[in-house]
């Protein structure tokens, strides 16, 4: 009972103490302790807001898309500071599902050591190392989340890295036709896990009092209309395709950009 009253007092004292010290100098050296860092995945389509089952989007391949599902897996987060030091988030806890339809758009990293982070690296999908861990790599919460969000394949013991579905029309396909883009690794035959490193326009500051939010703008248009042009008129269902799946994986790595960083205490953005 006593602890109940002491704890907030202590916390307030701590916060005010460290707040004083950080007033003097806001450089990386003065940042101490640890805190949370949140990464917001703000899904869009070529600059527009992504509205599932509502808006239509026209891409440069001349195809008009209605999008019903945009889910993907992100993993293996690494934060890089201004001096090039890397902090790798604990691997076992570093797998997340982003789902537009289920409003899961945040990755919440906890206990990040204080620092001035200038870029972030993460994977799209599940790496082979994780698969090779066998039973030990199977985190209950993640597996359930993946199953609940249509991110597991039933015919092979693996995850879909990207589940992008909807319907489209084009010059040759005039009736709205369903499309399904499911991308993942092809067993041991083809590894489609990719990593992406993106710089932040302003450093994300983490300390015992600072818990930043890194706001990513994610462009779903890049999946089909990136460096590789993937035509739905050619194939509306791409699940395991030796040529197109790796191209989709590459395209998808170009979806991410840090739009801005919110620095501060208990940032609620």
């Amino acid at each position: 009972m006593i602890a109940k009253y002491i704890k907030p007092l202590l916390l307030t004292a701590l916060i005010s103490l460290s707040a004083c010290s950080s007033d003097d100098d806001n450089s990386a050296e003065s940042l101490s302790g640890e805190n949370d860092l949140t990464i917001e995945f703000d899904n869009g389509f070529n600059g527009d807001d992504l509205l599932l089952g509502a808006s239509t989007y026209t891409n440069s391949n001349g195809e008009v898309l209605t999008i019903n599902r945009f889910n993907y897996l992100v993993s293996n987060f690494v934060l890089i500071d201004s001096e090039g030091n890397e902090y790798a988030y604990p691997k076992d806890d570093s797998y997340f599902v982003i789902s537009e339809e289920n409003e899961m758009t945040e990755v919440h990293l906890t206990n990040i050591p204080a620092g001035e982070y200038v870029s972030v690296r993460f994977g799209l999908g599940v790496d082979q190392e994780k698969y090779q861990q066998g039973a030990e790599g199977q985190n209950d919460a993640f597996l359930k989340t993946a199953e609940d969000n249509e991110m597991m394949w039933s015919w092979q013991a693996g995850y879909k890295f990207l589940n992008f579905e909807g319907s489209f029309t084009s010059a040759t396909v005039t009736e709205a036709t369903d499309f399904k883009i499911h991308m993942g690794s092809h067993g041991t035959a083809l590894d489609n896990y990719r990593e992406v490193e993106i710089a932040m326009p302003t450093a994300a500051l983490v300390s015992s009092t600072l818990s930043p939010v890194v706001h990513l703008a994610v462009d779903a248009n890049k999946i089909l209309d990136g460096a590789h042009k993937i035509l739905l008129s050619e194939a509306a269902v791409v699940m395991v395709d030796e040529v197109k799946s790796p191209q989709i994986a590459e395209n998808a790595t170009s979806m991410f950009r840090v739009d801005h960083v919110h620095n501060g205490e208990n940032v609620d953005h």
Partner: protein
Amino acid sequence: MFIMVKMLIINWSKSSENRGLTLIFRFLFFRMKNQLKTILLALVICNAIACSPDNEEEYILINEPLQLEIPANFPEMVYDISKNPPTEQGFALGKKLFYDGKLSANGFISCGFCHEQRSAFTHHGHQFSHGIDDLEGVRNAPAIQNAAFMSQFAWDGATAHLDLFPIIPITNEVEMGETVSNVLAKLKADGAYQRLFANAFENGEVSNENFFKALSQFMVMLISSNSKYDKYVRKEDAITFTETETRGMEIFQQKCASCHKTDLFTDDAFRNNGLPIYPGINDIGRAEVSGSATDNYKFKVPSLRNVAMTAPYMHDGRFGSLQSVLDFYANGVRDSETLDSILKQNNRLGIDLSKKDKDALISFLNTLTDETYLNDKRFAEY
């Protein structure tokens, strides 16, 4: 001789119920086994939770490591048992899970439903194994012995890790039609399973990790290595081969062993053996996993252990007898872009086999039947 160390940990339960106090006793038994100065340290944690108001204590079984002997004529084991060493309780749990219909959506289809011991863990009398709601798959349930020595699983290599294999039949719509998370939820709600998991694993949790580990422990122990052939090559029990069996073995080594390699009788590779496409089912095999047209119609080379017991044959169970299988290799192989080059030699398709060769081969293949394994009570459902 026993040395017993007893530790008492008192854990204040955070539950708001009246039974606020939970006692956890942890016993560590260091057991010295046999007197040949070989000390087997069986570190065993036994959790006994007394939560009833009168502090009645319940003691749970001691867990012992299981001996796992690698047969002298086998290659190295692929499965890393240091990460999941089989124990008596882990194996027992794995076996219960293997035979439990809870793993399926309707509660009736267990692993053992399609993998019956008396047919060397295949689905006897079923060309296509049927699963939930009597839905039929397009493939024949393969034998599962010696899985710890394999690096690819399922006909198309849909996983390369034994631990993850159960995900495939559990989630397949025509097999068990369940989700992994749902199976876990059912096990978590089951008092008997809670105890079995507590007995089998140090952290005692009903978790995916422990679920997969228990199933693997059962499968890792399914070793078939005591056929007449094994005893013959290991020179045990003064076993001899008949003239026909010896001739069959020679032909086998010449004409079959390049794919049915080693004493596992498979090279774990994916090959197209030239089967005509099954009418109505265009099963492209390995290409379904790899997405590569070069893998079209390739399937994993199956082990031939206990092959006399595992009819029907081929990934789609199209052949009812070994005779038909050999007739196919002699006369029925069809050419295609991905036909294995081994079956396209000397200006002919398939394997040159005379009637006598086939008879001798069948005699030899019959020596691969392992009665010890087929009747091993440790693996039996009842």
